[in-house]
């Protein structure tokens, strides 16, 4: 391959992986924005999304002839199911803790994460599960770029989801209420905003997007396992920080940037793929040092 071809290939890979990061990062960012919680369980929700997609697909496959139709149904169903899971978690574990000290709610989030993670670990006995879809992985070329149908559709789907979310946030009352709650929860309550409802919707949307990312990652990599959320959780958090935590377009941007950075970073000699995750993490630390508010973040002065 010429260096131009490598460049194009990595650009595409980076955008694709980055769009997964972005979808997960949005959930982190939304929840952080609205209730200032680092939702550790979010990474496990992503993992649950992948497994729920796999199970639903297993049910559907005999009945649905078209592979794409099957995946789309599984995707939508899982998004709803996992979205509801997010709402339930929020109701049981986070809502009673909203007024508790910061440390307590972080530990609750950690506990929820452990419960989800270990449950799936027990159910799958720690095995990798193949994510069989029946989709073709036949490659064709667009110019110098080697492509498969699957990858193209995945990237497209991710971008469509991001666009829909953007419309939801900017064009509806819910989006406005979300931003208002992020600014001042108590005042919103006084103004008659159903704060708990909006928080629940936030969890629903964030979890649904994570589930979508989980299924897409399953289709992309071909396997799923209980541990798949851990690293992507860290990376999505990094992406959220890069874009400016709490800022939704920032999370998308951060995800895409991080994906590109990894794709090109692993091309640098001495870094290679075994150091890829270390590289991401060092990048996070550097970002926290030099641009802690993120690319799109503003310096906010908190009122006393």
């Amino acid at each position, binding site marked *: 391959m010429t260096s131009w071809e490598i460049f194009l290939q990595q650009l595409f890979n980076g955008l694709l992986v980055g769009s997964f990061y972005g979808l997960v990062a949005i959930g982190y960012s939304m929840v952080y924005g609205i209730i*200032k919680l*680092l939702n*550790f369980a979010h990474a496990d929700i992503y993992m649950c999304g992948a497994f729920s997609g796999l199970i639903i697909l297993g049910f559907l496959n005999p009945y649905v002839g078209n592979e794409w139709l099957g995946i789309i149904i599984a995707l939508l169903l899982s998004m709803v199911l996992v979205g509801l899971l997010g709402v339930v978690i929020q109701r049981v*574990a986070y809502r*009673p*803790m909203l*007024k*508790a*000290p*910061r*440390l*307590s*709610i*972080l*530990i*609750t989030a*950690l*506990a*929820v994460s*452990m*419960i989800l993670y*270990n*449950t799936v*670990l*027990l159910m799958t006995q720690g095995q990798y599960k193949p994510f069989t879809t029946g989709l073709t992985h036949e490659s064709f070329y667009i110019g110098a770029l080697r492509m498969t149908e699957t990858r193209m559709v995945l990237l497209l789907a991710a971008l469509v989801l991001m666009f829909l979310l953007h419309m939801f946030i900017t064009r509806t009352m819910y989006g406005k209420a979300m931003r208002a709650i992020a600014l001042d929860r108590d005042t919103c309550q006084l103004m008659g905003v159903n704060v708990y409802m909006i928080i629940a919707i936030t969890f629903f949307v964030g979890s649904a997007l994570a589930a979508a990312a989980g299924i897409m990652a399953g289709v992309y990599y071909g396997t799923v396992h209980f541990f798949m959320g*851990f*690293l992507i959780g*860290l990376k999505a*958090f*990094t992406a959220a*920080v890069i874009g400016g935590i709490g800022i939704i377009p920032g999370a998308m941007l951060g995800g895409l940037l991080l994906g590109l950075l990894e794709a090109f970073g692993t091309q640098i000699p001495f870094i290679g793929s*075994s*150091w890829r*995750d*270390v590289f991401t*993490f060092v990048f*996070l*630390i550097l970002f*926290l*040092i030099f641009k*802690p508010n993120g690319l799109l973040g503003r310096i906010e002065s908190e009122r*006393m």
Partner: protein
Amino acid sequence: MAEIKNNSQKNTPVGMIVEQLYLFFDNKVPRYLVMSAMTAFLIYLPLSSSRFTQEIMANLFFYVVVCLGLNIIVGFAGLLHLGYAAFFAVGAYTTGILSSVYGVNFWLTLPFSIIAAVIAGLAIGAPTLRLRGDYLAIVTLGFGEIIRLTVRNLEITGGAIGLIGIQRPVLFGVVLNQITHFYYLFFILAIIAIFVSYRLHDSRLGRAWEYIREDEDAASAMGINVVSTRLYAFIIGSAFGALAGSLYAAKMTAISPESFMFIHSVMILLAVVLGGMGKIPGVILGAVIVTLIPELSRDIGQFRLIIFAVLLLILMLYRPQGIWPERQGISTKL
């Protein structure tokens, strides 16, 4: 302002017993009596017990040390640390490399182990603690993973296999290679850890941590440098962990990346939270629970972690201050 409810313990019978115990121990004389009786018993124990018991007890003392170390960060300073096992690994590998590769005497590796932990603590803590406290949680989580990957990828750390042939420490001409030796070694270490914890708690530094935990803005208005005081806690706690890691390496003589998985960090954190963050007897109690319960209930195996996680969740929802009661009303201490 968020106020922690602390009268819930009065409603349950267990709570009442604990309350009575607490009042009993608040009095100096019985406290010293019980403490010396316990110390005497623990000194005597290896003379009349099996290797297995000694092994468990040594493990328990070890956990007490690690938990008290993490308690400085989580309990005293109120910072969530999710990668404590990584600092543990920093200590263990520093000792391991110096000892097995360069043949340095075990005791001489300890200062290096502390230095390594301080450097790692500064690298992680300094950029993060300037920002919101909760960024630290995810950065330490990441750091735990990075250390594990790094020791896997490097040659000097023995890759995935790890290091073997770490020298046994020698004390007064005796090579420490029996479980009884380590029993006493860890026992002494646990006592030192308890002593240091109490001294720190009742000092200017300990009070500063408490002020920051209570109200960050008021603390800084009182002239406390919030960032550096937190960083101080983070580094002291990390050094504690590294020292424990060094001793672990000496006891096992072989270490591998899998000894320092995320789950160990979680178990240590669990012990601290369970017993009661910031309360030294509570943390010791937490360490006892976390080390002894798995020993008593090996059959449930995989379910253990789920049960622990559910327990943690319930605890946070209904009794966030942990098992050990909060001090309240008029305090006669000081």
